[in-house]
């Protein structure tokens, strides 16, 4: 009996990280997207001004590109909406996996493209590329994120 209890306890201890994992990855991706959002805000604030600080744009572009390398791992199966987990991820992420993958790839492509243009120093081109990058966020959010609009 005693050994059984210890075994059960050990098993519970060992499996608890697995059970906790979906919650953690939700927190990770929300924090990640907020970083992406903040970096993208820096870019747009600079591009909006008459004299953009190019190094701010370039650092932020690199940050976003780095996140674009991680985000593929942010949506493991089982990390969708369920009781007790606050997430705006829609179930369609997993039920329409190919379309979601396309949206992810679109973001990766645009993030890489923007990082390239940011390095070139051509502000007019950066403005166009920033629109395209923002478009890749919007495309995914409209289909796969619960809207709060605005």
């Amino acid at each position, binding site marked *: 009996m005693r050994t059984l209890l210890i075994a059960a306890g050990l098993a519970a201890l060992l499996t608890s990280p697995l059970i906790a994992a979906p919650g953690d990855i939700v927190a990770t991706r929300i924090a990640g997207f907020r970083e992406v959002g903040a970096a993208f805000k820096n870019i747009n*604030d600079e591009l*909006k001004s008459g004299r953009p600080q190019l190094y701010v744009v370039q650092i932020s572009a690199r940050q976003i590109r780095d996140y674009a390398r991680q985000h593929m791992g942010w949506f493991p199966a089982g990390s969708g909406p369920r009781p007790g987990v606050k997430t705006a991820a829609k179930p369609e992420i997993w039920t329409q996996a190919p379309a979601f993958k396309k949206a992810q790839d679109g973001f990766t492509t645009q993030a890489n493209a923007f990082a390239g243009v940011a390095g070139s120093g051509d502000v007019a081109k950066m403005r166009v590329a920033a629109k395209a990058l923002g*478009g890749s966020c919007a495309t995914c*959010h409209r289909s796969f994120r619960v809207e*709060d609009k605005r």
Partner: protein
Amino acid sequence: MARTPRQFVWDLPVRLFHWALVLLIGFSWWSAENYHMDWHRLSGQAVLFLIAFRLIWGVVGSDTARFAHFLKGPRAIRVYLADRNAPAPVGHNPLGGWSVVAMLAVLVMQVVSGLFAVDTDGIESGPLSHLVDFDQGRLASAIHGVVFAGLQALIALHVLAVLFYLAVRRRNLVGPMVTGSAAAPAPISVRRAGPLALVVALLLSTALAWWLFAQSAL
């Protein structure tokens, strides 16, 4: 048959303000729901112009448009509510005056939160969003949403009140808001604003609306 005398109620600027506001609130809503954020921004700029104009007009406009004229204390409100047969005031009644202030206050919150709002996609943020950080901008965006729910509730109440007067009190308030006047046996004179006041109000509100939305004005 003699023409019934008309009572002047609302000047043209107030009426134009009102119906332009109705159209623009509807358009702002529609454009946000359908991701036409560039139109939403323009519409917000126009609403800001209207609100600024109305606030100034509330000081320099015709009597029925002035806050000092239609804002009354609790006693006047009690008297108005207690006596159904009390003579109807020209312009806003003592309670209606405060509903105007409530609507204008909520509209100000709506517009100001929009100025600083940062959207999730980052492409269409408010014209002053560069003055706040990302978290503050997201908060402004959340406020923009909550305040709109409040605005919708106030508008519903407003339209219900107008319908109440039409159906229960047998008084058509919409007519004067369209034509500017109402039939009345013994019209009283209302002091009307002159062209100078109009020019000043238009110039100030246009300047504000232009300046706040101008690229990196601040």
